[in-house]
């Protein structure tokens, strides 16, 4: 069988870049090592170009295992954009931190290769491989600061929970295979539909598979690793975990939920809905108490995952309209989330890199020191909370919209939780904003020098947040095109 090379061009481009980076790092000496970052950036751009070329056409290769369509392309663009941003916020951090930047960029790129495969994968096997390709480099990156106890602890926790959940998922997969005799998502769906009555054990298997992704998206109760790992690992890695790998998890979850197990939606939808409620409520409530900004962001991202799980709770077998709306809501939210959360981490890095500060109290008077960063943080936090005119509002809007396309009692319950949680969330977002703007700065704070790349990224993301807040059409038009049905 012959391979559609264009379809996998972005993946190839990224892989090649990764190898180049590794090679360059091995051969370059001293400051020349700095070159690896530009190389990585360049490769990413190339990958983006390839992906952009793919926009609009439908391709399938590897016997349908690997599919390219608008849905996949949007996701890939999301990942690659995130990659660019993370490269931007990483540079000075690693250049000055005397970390192993060569390895870092290599691992980062590899991990992203896994991510951009994820939305194209239409087979459990490929999904599994992609998931591991995302995770394993991440394990190492979390432990990047080899001398730091925190870093290695973060790595260990991340690793153990990771492999455990993967093991559970694999066990589930094996059972699913046992029931359906195939690992092709569409095939599984067909088999389940054909089978008629539903075996409890099959449902159990489905849940086990869900666990694997639940870990990636850090949904309660699979979220425990997240705060510790974010706090312990280098901040750019934390940003990457909080945004990109979470998005990857959602890509996979969408695939299995809405393609493979779509016929069983009536069973898993309520469960995922409940998980959504737990996740956002718990995340928000715990975030209230956090004094460390990174942990606060960690819990907030847990809560955000909860919001993104709501649409899963709305799914229903056969109800194409509702399911499409749900998928689009998640997709939209992911994009918005990427923009605002990477931005937030960017600012955190800027502050932390210079002053080593992470405690919330020390953000006091940031506005006087660096209005740009303070402004940026404000915009991102308000957006995370969902206040206009930011993209965050539209993200929530999309979810509510999905919930009300066809109102059910459960949907209403979910809405109420969404409302209450958004208000709770503002408690701690506003707390940060107030500290930055309204409290007096401590003495002897070193001035901030975010550096060019970082400032650029923050500015771009800030502008993006606001522009998309005014004209959400820019993405909502794209996301509304992408429906999984085309992808099936």
């Amino acid at each position, binding site marked *: 069988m012959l391979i559609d090379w264009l379809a996998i061009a972005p993946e190839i481009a990224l892989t090649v870049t990764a190898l180049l980076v590794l090679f360059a790092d091995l051969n370059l000496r001293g400051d020349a090592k700095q070159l690896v970052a530009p190389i990585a950036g360049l490769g990413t751009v190339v990958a983006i170009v390839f992906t952009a070329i793919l926009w609009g056409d439908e391709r399938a290769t590897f016997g349908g295992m690997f599919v390219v369509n608008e849905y996949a392309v949007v996701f890939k663009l999301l990942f690659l954009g995130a990659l660019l941003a993370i490269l931007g916020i990483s540079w000075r951090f690693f250049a000055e931190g005397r970390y192993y930047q060569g390895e870092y960029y290599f691992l980062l790129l590899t991990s992203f290769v896994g991510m951009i495969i994820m939305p194209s994968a239409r087979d459990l096997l490929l999904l*599994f491989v992609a998931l591991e390709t995302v995770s394993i480099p991440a394990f190492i990156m979390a432990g990047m600061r080899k001398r730091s*106890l925190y870093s290695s602890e973060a790595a260990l926790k991340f690793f153990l929970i990771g*492999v455990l959940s993967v*093991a559970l998922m*694999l066990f589930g997969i*094996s059972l699913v295979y046992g029931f359906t*005799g*195939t690992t092709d998502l569409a095939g599984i769906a067909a088999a389940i539909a054909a089978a008629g009555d539903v075996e409890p054990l099959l449902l159990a298997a489905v849940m086990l598979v869900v666990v694997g992704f639940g870990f990636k998206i850090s949904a309660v109760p699979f979220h425990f690793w997240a705060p510790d790992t974010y706090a312990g690992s280098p901040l750019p890695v934390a940003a990457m975990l909080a945004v990109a790998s979470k998005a990857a998890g959602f890509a996979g979850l969408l695939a299995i939920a809405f393609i493979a197990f779509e016929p069983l939606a009536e069973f898993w939808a309520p469960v995922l809905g409940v998980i959504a409620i737990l996740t956002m409520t718990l995340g928000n409530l715990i975030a209230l108490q956090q004094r460390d900004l990174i942990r606060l962001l960690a819990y907030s991202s847990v809560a955000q995952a909860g919001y993104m799980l709501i649409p899963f709770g709305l799914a229903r077998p056969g109800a194409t309209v509702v399911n499409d709306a749900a998928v689009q809501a998640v997709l939209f939210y992911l994009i918005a989330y990427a923009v605002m959360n990477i931005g937030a981490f960017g600012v955190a890095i800027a502050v932390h890199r210079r002053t080593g500060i992470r405690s919330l109290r020390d953000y006091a008077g940031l506005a006087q020191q660096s209005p740009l960063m303070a402004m940026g943080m404000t915009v991102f936090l308000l957006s995370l909370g969902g206040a206009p005119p930011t993209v965050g509002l539209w993200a929530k809007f999309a979810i509510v919209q999905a919930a009300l396309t066809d109102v059910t009692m459960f949907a209403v319950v979910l809405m109420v939780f969404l409302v209450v949680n958004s208000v709770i969330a503002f408690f701690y977002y506003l707390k940060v904003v107030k500290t930055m703007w309204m409290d007096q700065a401590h003495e002897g704070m070193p001035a901030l020098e975010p550096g060019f790349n970082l400032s650029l990224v923050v500015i771009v993301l800030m502008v993006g947040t606001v522009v998309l807040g005014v004209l959400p059409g820019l993405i909502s038009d794209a996301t509304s095109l992408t429906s999984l049905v085309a992808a099936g």
Partner: protein
Amino acid sequence: MSLVGPLLLATFLFCVGVYGLIARRNAVLVLISVEMMLVSVNINLVAFQNLLFPAEAAVSGQMFALFIIAVAAAEAGVGLAIILNLFRNRASVNVDDVDLMRW
């Protein structure tokens, strides 16, 4: 040959693995328990493949098993590296000691 035997074996291995992961304090043993879980999955897959769908052209079950073995190897490598690093930083591989970060 009946499917019961392999399935029982797999389940038993899996449960042992889970127990080990939760109960054992030594990081290396924890790692080994993880490997046991993965092995149990492989048994499952191969058994299903051979006993339920011998005719499947793609032999996806065994394929999957092969992939898992490969990935498991990689995971084990990474895991050992992390544990080694931990041992360097604090002369112990006891998982209990690893609780700097909480709340």
